[in-house]
């Protein structure tokens, strides 16, 4: 019982610091997912291109990401990129998360593109549209609609994954929980508190994705 009261005390008293962490989690997630989306789109298009070498590049990238843990990717980028460019930890974190999610998003988009009926491409081409224009105006808009549920799911995963950036020192939600736990020599209530914040974010995003799905279903 006292444990529960203690948890509520912690939850309420730590509101201000967690709001700071919450903001950083959101910045991290939004920035990394936007970049991941562009990376994913790029590699999806490489994969469906008919150029073998481009397909190999995309395959290699996806294989690397799927074959190694995110935490390794983040650390390699954080320590490894210093040879090329010294990213601060926010952008190193964004780069690591985007690099990671990008591969999964590439697979989602590729799947969605390939699920669009070939007749759509043929209709576009037969009207004199170039293959690029057909892709951009006809195929991709349909593919994105179809990909909304999977993309939404991947975005939720991306937000949760951003917690690992705390290990390169970011004070996002999980980082705040860790330092608060350390300050107070008492981790459990802070980790429970941060779990509640994540649950809320995921819940809100789930509802948004469902709404988007419904809205898009209307025109189909």
């Amino acid at each position, binding site marked *: 019982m006292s444990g529960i009261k203690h948890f509520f005390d912690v939850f309420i008293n730590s509101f201000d610091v967690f709001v700071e962490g919450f903001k950083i989690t959101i910045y991290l997630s939004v920035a990394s997912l936007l970049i991941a989306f562009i990376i994913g789109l790029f590699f999806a298009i490489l994969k469906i291109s008919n150029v073998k070498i481009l397909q190999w590049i995309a395959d290699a990238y996806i294989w690397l990401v799927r074959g190694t843990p995110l935490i390794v990717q983040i650390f390699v980028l954080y320590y490894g990129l210093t040879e090329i460019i010294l990213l601060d930890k926010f952008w190193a974190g964004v780069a690591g998360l985007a690099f990671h999610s990008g591969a999964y998003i590439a697979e989602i988009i590729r799947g969605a593109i390939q699920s669009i009926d070939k*007749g759509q491409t043929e209709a*576009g081409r*037969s009207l*004199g549209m170039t293959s690029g*224009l057909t892709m951009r105006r*006809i195929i991709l*808009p349909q593919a994105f609609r179809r990909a909304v549920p999977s993309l939404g799911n991947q975005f939720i995963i991306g937000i949760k994954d951003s917690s690992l950036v705390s290990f390169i020192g970011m004070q996002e939600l999980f980082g705040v929980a860790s330092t608060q736990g350390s300050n107070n020599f008492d981790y459990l209530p802070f980790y429970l508190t941060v779990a509640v914040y994540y649950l809320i974010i995921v819940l809100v995003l789930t509802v948004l994705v469902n709404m988007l799905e419904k809205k898009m279903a209307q*025109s*189909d």
Partner: protein
Amino acid sequence: MSEGKEKEMIKVEKLNKSFGDLHVLKDIDLKVNESDVVVLIGASGSGKSTLLRCLNFLEIKNSGKIVIEGDQIEQETHDLNKVRERVGMVFQHFNLFPHKTVLGNIIEAPTQVKGISKEQAIKEGKLLLDKVGLGDKYNVYPSTLSGGQKQRVAIARALAMKPDVMLFDEPTSALDPELVGEVLSTMKELADDGMTMVVVTHEMGFAREVGDWVVYMHDGKIVESGIPIDLFDNPRKERTKEFLGSIL
């Protein structure tokens, strides 16, 4: 395919097309004059669709000549996208763009490919929709239309590019029987307006009434061709007789 000094819209000579080891079109010769309606018939797999798709360069021939309005079109020397603007195509399964309204489908290519202004494209698009009898449907999405309506929108969409020739690949065979008529009559009007058309169809009534020339294909070759009354009523070749016997 009446001979004479009429303008030759399409001339095909010794056209060959293979998919891997499969030789699908074998030395095809074909001429289509301006305002002619040429009907392609033949059993499934005989190569009708492939021929049509070669005329629109959705498939690239292996050898032979394809001349469109006097230009011999080669992948190397021509921008095929430009050629496709002049050759409209209507598909069996309509292939409307589901994420765009009926009018959105129609103005897509004129605005994006020809660079016509949106206002102008909308004006012309609405006229075309009136013409195919769907003037009131411009703002709905394709999913709300019947098959026959979809196919008429597809025809209007192809016409919006002001093509010189229209190709139809079994435009009515995905339709419920009661909806076939509305599409055929739209096509007949188009023919009456003087559009040059190449039509793959199993609708023999249409071929007889609207066709100027009927081509019977079998196994990648043109077996026999002629004006409808000759080909249907007095086929010269045994294979043609057999085929007509099986479908009539």
